């Protein structure tokens, strides 16, 4: 298992660690059983993600993808953040070992979950924005992403 320098940098010096008080959207995915939990907090003003923070229980790749994913969505309209794919997170990190790709999927899912939470709080239907309900049901063993 070898991580590249960029991944190691985002692991050793993760960006955006922490919580946002009274966050506009919070999403949590993964479970202890499979060893990764990501929780993402969003501050959204006029549809723009003005701040994003995360807390992650997991391996080096889980921390690095959380860090990179929050960096990638900050300052973006939430509709654009919804288009963020796990592939884009992996590319931005300069690649991940194959067994760690599921960590990047978690990052994508965590962001979708946080935006979904935001939309529900706004009285909007996440499905209208293309978010499938229960994208992550916390059951990693039956997860198609693994």
């Amino acid at each position, binding site marked *: 298992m070898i*991580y590249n320098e960029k991944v*190691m940098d985002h692991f050793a010096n993760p960006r955006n660690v922490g919580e946002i008080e009274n966050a506009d959207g919070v999403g949590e995915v993964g479970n202890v*059983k499979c*060893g990764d939990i990501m929780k993402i907090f969003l501050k959204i003003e006029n549809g723009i993600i003005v701040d994003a923070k995360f807390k992650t229980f*997991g*391996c080096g790749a889980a921390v690095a993808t959380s860090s990179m994913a929050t960096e990638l969505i900050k300052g973006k309209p939430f509709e654009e953040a919804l288009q963020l794919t796990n592939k884009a997170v992996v590319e931005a990190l300069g690649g991940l070992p194959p067994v760690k790709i599921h960590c990047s999927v978690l990052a994508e899912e965590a962001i979708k979950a946080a935006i979904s939470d935001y939309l529900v709080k706004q009285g909007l239907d996440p499905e209208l924005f293309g978010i499938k309900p229960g994208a992550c049901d916390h059951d990693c063993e039956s997860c198609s992403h693994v």
Partner: protein
Amino acid sequence: MKRIYTDNAATTKVSEEVLNAMLPYLTEAYGNPNSLHSAGREVRQAIDKAREQVAAAIGCDAGEIYFTAGGSESDNWAIKGIARRYGKKGKHIISSKIEHHAVLHSLAALEKDGFEVTYLDVDENGFVSVEDLEKAIRPDTILITIMFANNEIGSVQPIEEIAKVAKAHNIFFHTDAVQAVGHLPINVKEMNIDMLSMSGHKFNAPKGVGALYVKRGIILPNLIDGGSQEKGRRAGTENTASIIGMGVAIENAVKVMETESKRLAALREKLLNGLLEKIPYCRRNTPKENTLPGVANLSIRFVEGEAMLLMLDMRGICASSGSACTSGSLDPSHVMLAIGLDHGTAHGSIRFSLDKYNTEEEIDYILEVFPTIVERLREMSPIWTEENRAKIQ
């Protein structure tokens, strides 16, 4: 940055004495030990000596030692060999849930061939029960294979009692002693062990060399057909320098075993007790008694093993974990689950394994650095909440 290597259960450094003993056999003494001429004969003599050194270390005859490429090969040969040769007598094997994969996967291969395997449970400290073993024995049981000492947590099994049960029922007994040889006193005759696997690189010999002890009278099928090496059972020109290195390494390990195991056990306890004191919400996974001198394993709740390893590595400390993320699968180590840990606690397991090169200063450094790493990762952890902490008494 100075490197602190505390992953000696994974592999050890080749000691200087071992290297010096090996060097001539990589340079001027390059003869083939199977040749009749003087260049060959001098190497043959050195291999004979190594065989005697290995035999003396575990209390058997030199003729009962077969050199192999390591612990995994020895395990495979013993287990599959007995199954192939004695499978007509019965198709049942007894083992444990905390064996090394070299044993577990050999057994899995046999299960595909129609063998049945009973995997004994272990208690929360990683010990099998001799009572359970007796209950598991069937008329068609041909082999009991239970490890001498566990590589992840250190638990040392009641090998003499297990061997006694095997003998009373006329069942072959093999033990994977890869972690025990060179670290614990072993006498295969007194302990009634029929077959024993060992690996050189766990006691300061090079990687790629090991041995299988096979009690005289037990005939295993040939592992490699070819020339007459290892009595024709494991053909191929000998791994000369490594075999000679292993002989020296095992002799040295036995020489200092008594004092060294006391020193290591004291360091192990200092490390474990120090960490348990400094870091709240930990669980000691290494048993307090009947355990390997140098293996210290504990679980740090609310953090994940690989993240800890990476941060330790950044501070120069090499350790190991039973977390899923270090195995490339979603499941944490089978040993952690077998001792009854929930997945979260198993993912947070960490092992420091010490050997003769580790010092008290290094333990002090780990005690200083590791708690700050845990603190940092817990601050980052979404499950490090008061609510979750309250669930743990």
